[in-house]
């Protein structure tokens, strides 16, 4: 049932992220060995794989937190090069949520959200506050607006982080293991927000996650990374029920018990 729900929410055919033959080295270590991936507008792509497989590094190249050294990455028609204007333009279209939240500890929840709209988009404080409060309501914690990150639970912090990314009105959201640092009872509150984002708003999303229930229910496509290459990709049903590659089968059997 849930599969059919996900598949009715079909993504468009308009490409928004195009990665071609992306390579990346950390010193001598070859971490990305030729990644080809195209993501369409409205698509939810879940990337999974063992730690060290390059999945986090790859999504960090999409908004240039990591520089790729070969190949091309194009986001909404803008190619990521060393040109600082291109980088700024691409970053303004992409929101990112991190494993360790990375909220700004010296700012309240609301200030965390309004900082970028005010500094980058030059919103007046009043307008930014209004946007911020609306987003906090959307992630379900308007009453925490004036608390500092250290006063919030992990789940609440991650929801603030999602609201902070959304405040820039991005076309694409990147999630880098958003629930890995959370206590088990807080995982669902974050996944619910992400799911709402995908299903109600049709946000284009790339999620690195091992939450297979979430992947099955929400993803249009799953991508399996191993040792810096994409081993297999396909719709969730195919990946879960009929994986083609031996490595995919082995990894799935390990994490699904």
């Amino acid at each position, binding site marked *: 049932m849930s599969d059919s729900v996900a598949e009715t929410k079909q993504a468009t055919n308009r490409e928004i992220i195009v990665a071609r033959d992306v390579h990346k080295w950390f010193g001598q270590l070859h971490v990305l060995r030729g990644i080809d991936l195209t993501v369409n507008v409205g698509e939810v792509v879940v990337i999974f794989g063992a730690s060290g497989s390059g999945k986090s590094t790859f999504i960090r190249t999409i908004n240039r*937190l990591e520089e790729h050294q070969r190949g091309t990455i194009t986001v909404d028609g803008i190619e990521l090069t060393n040109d600082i204007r291109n980088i700024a333009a691409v970053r303004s279209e992409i929101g990112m949520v991190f494993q360790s939240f990375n909220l*700004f500890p010296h700012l309240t929840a609301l200030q965390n959200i309004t*900082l970028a709209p005010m*500094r*980058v988009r030059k919103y007046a404080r009043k307008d930014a506050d209004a946007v911020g409060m609306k987003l906090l309501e959307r992630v379900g914690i308007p009453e925490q607006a004036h608390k500092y*990150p250290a006063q919030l639970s992990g789940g609440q912090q991650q929801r603030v982080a999602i609201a902070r990314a959304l405040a820039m009105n991005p076309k694409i959201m990147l999630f880098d293991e958003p629930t890995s640092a959370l206590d088990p009872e807080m995982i669902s509150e974050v996944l619910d927000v992400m799911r709402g984002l995908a299903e109600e708003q049709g946000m284009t999303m790339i999620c690195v996650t091992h939450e297979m229930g979430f992947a099955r229910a929400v993803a249009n496509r799953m991508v399996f990374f191993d040792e810096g290459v994409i081993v297999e990709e396909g719709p969730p049903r195919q990946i879960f029920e009929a994986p083609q590659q031996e490595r995919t089968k082995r990894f799935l059997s390990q994490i699904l018990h």
Partner: protein
Amino acid sequence: MTAETLTPPATTIGPIGWLRANLFSGPVSAFVTVLVGAALVWLAIQVGGWATADARWSVVTDNLRVFLIGRYPGDLAWRIWLSLAIPSVLAGLSAGAFGRTTRTLAVTLSAVQALIAILIAFSPIGILGVVAYAANAAAVWVSYAVGRRARIPRRVLAGAWLVSLPITFVLIAGFRGTPLTPVGTNEWGGLLLTVLLAAVGIVLSFPLGVLLALGRRSRLPAVRILSTGYIELIRGVPLVTILFMADLILPLFLPGGWQLDRVARAMGGISLFSAAYVAENVRGGLQSIPSGQVEAAQALGLSGVQTNISIVLPQALRAVIPANVGLFISLLKDTTLVTIIGLLELLNVGRAVLGQPESLGARMEVYLFIAAVFFVLCYAMSQASYRLERQLGVGTR
């Protein structure tokens, strides 16, 4: 099986409990307590007896004007009193608007001026000085009351503080061709000079140090090498050397006809010296910021400068408040070193006073007085920094 809530045994709580636990927990501890207590009482009686009966405090009050302002002309001293009204009023207004840290500073400023008023009452300076200092001490409280009501915006106050420094300076230094007769800086001295050297040193070295720290981490090799070179060079040289350099060598490099007076040279030397240490403190703070903070800011589209101003520096500077205040306290005390280039700061004034025949045998009184003045200033700074830490630590650990 519900457990009763019992009150703790009476002997473990309250002052008696504290005494038992900390001072009389056993026969040895009780013995040591009594012994040390007796020694302290004996010491207090000795010192107290000397300070009240034998000490000739008149050496301080008789020379109070020199201690306060050095050789600054007595009939122009009103300009210093007037210039003190500026920080008094601003401190009061700021305390009213911000509370906390600024309140500590305002209270200190008021108390110190009240204390000076009392001292002046015993000195030959005259009633006008008493009135002036008392009025300034009161002005702090009046403007505190005003500041609480008026809710002056932060930006206005910050701007006023910035403007107040040059105004104070002009008021004290005077200006040719105006009713404010110029007073050469070589006539400034005593507490006035000490405080000015320290204040200018702190105000100038802090931003310079922050820039150097950022420069040392810059991606541009030229900026990085220059900053690192500057920091290492300055830190490898004693302040005394730098003061000599500033005093003797700097004028040689200035274009002909340019003259920088002695006090300004000393201020420059102290600021340039202190900046290198501020830079190293701040660099420590910058390194303590996790890379995720910068990544989050970049991912949001903030530029490098915006990231530094809004994310990195506020956290880094807060982390290094204790270290920086420690540094500024030593800067205040290091101003005594300008003695060697012939400036009459507080300690040197003390030596000059002791050189007079009528001060014979009053070394203890003079040095104790000077030590007390430095202690009050340093202690106020350290208290203000604790307040600041607590105030800025809201919601974080």
